[in-house]
């Protein structure tokens, strides 16, 4: 006879503690730029931002604490973890572009540990295996009900950017995924 599966009761806040496979860390404040520009503005912008804006889908470029993430054919998210003034840097480029300071619109959660992939995949449909989503890969995608921007910082570390008001939801969902990653 088949074994009966027995559901076990779980406290509502069980998933808010620490996990063996995954560490969730709210990322420190950073400055961020939503950047839109045509191909002819890229060399100038790359030079003044100090990081080469990537032109291939799903790729990013980093220079120290500054990252440029490809979001679309003419759209980038630039993150500076040292809170440098990105607006000023973009302004000095002298190119035709649109830059919006979104430093306080987004917050980030750093997801690390051997279960990081599983935790994110609990709500994200993308293939996060190393062959398809290598270190440095980035993508705007969906996580549960909300839009996120994913950046793979290391083999077992991701940066999850989401809009500020969605962050309790994202952190909660990641916690649930992290709790399940150990099983």
């Amino acid at each position, binding site marked *: 006879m088949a074994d009966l599966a027995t559901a076990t009761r779980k406290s509502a806040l069980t998933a808010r503690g620490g996990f063996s496979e995954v560490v969730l860390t709210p990322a420190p404040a950073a400055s961020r730029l939503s950047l839109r520009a045509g191909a002819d503005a890229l060399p100038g912008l790359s030079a003044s931002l100090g990081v080469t804006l990537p032109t291939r*889908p799903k790729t990013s470029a980093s220079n120290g604490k500054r990252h440029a993430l490809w*979001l679309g*054919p003419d759209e980038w998210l630039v993150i500076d973890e040292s809170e440098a003034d990105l607006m000023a840097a973009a302004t000095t480029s002298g190119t035709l572009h649109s830059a919006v300071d979104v430093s306080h619109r987004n917050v980030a959660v750093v997801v690390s540990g051997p279960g990081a992939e599983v935790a994110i995949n609990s709500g994200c449909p993308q293939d996060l295996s190393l062959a398809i989503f290598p270190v440095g890969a980035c993508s705007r*995608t*969906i996580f549960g009900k909300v839009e996120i921007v994913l950046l793979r910082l290391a083999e077992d570390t991701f940066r999850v950017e989401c809009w500020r008001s969605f962050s309790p939801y994202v952190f909660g969902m990641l916690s649930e995924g992290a709790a399940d990653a150990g099983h």
Partner: protein
Amino acid sequence: MLLIYCPYCEEERSELEFRNAGDAHIVRPTNIAEISDEEFEEFFFLRQNPKGLIFERWRHIHGCGRFFNAARDTVSDRFYTTYKAGEPKPDVAAILKGEQDKGAAR
């Protein structure tokens, strides 16, 4: 889960990242202020709603944000092909022939 090939991301992504945006290749009249109400109705509201092959606009809203066009079957939900906005409409006969050949090979 349905996978849709985004011609800008050059990759198949989950349907969750996409939104349908109505029929493709609907040309806005250049003399929009001069056309009659009937002509405007024809352009703005009336669609064929075919059973089978349809050309649609789709948007990769939770990805690269771009609109692109797709040839899709309204019965099977199968995406025959997707192509960038502004590219010419693919030949219907070639799409259907390709499908037949695939079917025969199977």
